[in-house]
């Protein structure tokens, strides 16, 4: 579903991604781990067509970036640590706005389904600025799944959430992934990533330095694998 070959991204003289290769199969849930400045967010922004690669080849859902960016965006849902919502609109109005922007038909029915999925049906008429951070993040997931994307990108979605809100978000994330979507999530929370993802890639200095799966980790744990990967 995602193929990346020799991806390079430079900002001026600084090279953030340095020949990154990655393949993600359909239905996989990949946790992208790494220290601050490793290039995780830059990589997700390129996958999301929000930033252009300096060199290399990127394909998402069979479409090349940046040339077929609109086709990629139609099949992509993105959740970052900022919710990409409008505080002066209600939850329902935010979803309606994005639904119209994406050209969805039967929008009222779809909004009802999404609000039920994220557990915000009762708050549909409330302004988003009155929502807690956790509720805003759930609504952000609702916004991202509204057009039923095949690929979902999560950029540190748990940032700023308390334990209860994180647990609620985990349930929504599992529900979204269980529907057969391909998911790539960056995270600093190894315990959470270990529970949610089925594959773990460690990104350091702009390249993937190690990769493993939940099955391969059976006799170890993600923290040990992560430390070993960065030490090598």
């Amino acid at each position, binding site marked *: 579903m995602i193929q990346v070959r020799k991806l390079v991204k430079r900002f001026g003289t600084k090279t953030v991604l340095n020949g990154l290769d990655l393949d993600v199969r359909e239905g996989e849930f990949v946790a992208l781990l790494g220290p601050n400045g490793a290039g995780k967010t830059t990589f997700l922004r390129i996958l999301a067509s929000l930033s252009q690669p300096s060199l290399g080849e990127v394909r998402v859902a069979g479409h090349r970036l940046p040339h077929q960016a609109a086709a990629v965006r139609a099949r992509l849902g993105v959740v970052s640590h900022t919710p990409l919502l409008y505080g002066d609109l209600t939850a329902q109005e935010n979803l309606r706005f994005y639904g119209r922007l*994406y050209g969805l038909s039967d929008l009222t029915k779809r909004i009802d389904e999404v609000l039920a999925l994220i557990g915000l049906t009762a708050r549909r008429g409330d302004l988003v600025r009155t929502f807690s951070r956790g509720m805003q993040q759930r609504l952000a997931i609702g916004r991202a799944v509204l057009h039923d994307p095949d690929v979902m990108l999560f950029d540190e979605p748990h940032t700023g959430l308390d334990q209860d809100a994180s647990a609620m978000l985990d349930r929504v994330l599992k529900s979204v992934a269980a529907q057969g979507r391909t998911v790539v999530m960056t995270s600093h929370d190894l315990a959470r990533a270990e529970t949610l993802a089925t594959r773990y890639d460690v990104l350091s200095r702009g390249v993937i330095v190690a990769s493993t799966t939940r099955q391969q980790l059976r006799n170890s744990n993600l923290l040990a694998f992560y430390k070993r990967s960065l030490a090598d």
Partner: protein
Amino acid sequence: MPRAEKTFRKESPVSAFLRAIGAVAWKDLAAEFRSRELFTAMLVFALLVIIIFNFALELDISTRRSVTSGVLWATFAFAGTLGLNRSMSIEKDQGSLDGLLLAPVDRSAIYFGKVISNLAFMLIVEAIVLPVYSFLYGVNLLQPGLMLILLLGSIGYIVVGTLLAAMAVQSRTRDVMLPILLFPVVIPVLIAAVKASEGFLSGGEAAAIVPWLNLLIVYDVIFTSLAFMVFDYVVEE
């Protein structure tokens, strides 16, 4: 919950483009209707400027008529800058600009949606300021010709201003960057609008007004086309 059927509308690219423009404009107007942040700032600023001019320039009746077009356009240009700055910085501050850019539509639809909402705010401010100005300065401004100039001048100002606001918002000094970028570029609009307004207010002949009117129309067409072509590059990282 089962996954939804793929429910994208079957429509032509033009319909999709117009729908996206409508969605962005509706979102801006609905959000502003609730908060009234941008509109209030523009209106209060505009009213303060014309009141200050009224006290600063103690003018006789005939001189008032001659300075009217200059005072009006200076007021609208300064108030408009406040609105333009705010309309893009709201998107940037909330991080919602990325949300707009992620939509599978031609990005110039976002630009035109913003143009419509910014133009609506500016025209509403003008509609309130004109009667107040008429009262304070004793000049009748409710003339169809002047309304046409206000519309064409405002369109020119907003099409350029919205494009430059999208550029300036990427900068850390965006509050000062926009006027520095904008005012040199809109000088032709302001000169043409001031001259044409002056012509209408003084009852001048059509031959003196039409060239300025043509300049406004040409400027509007050129910069609307230019913005359509370059907006995608302006918002690209």
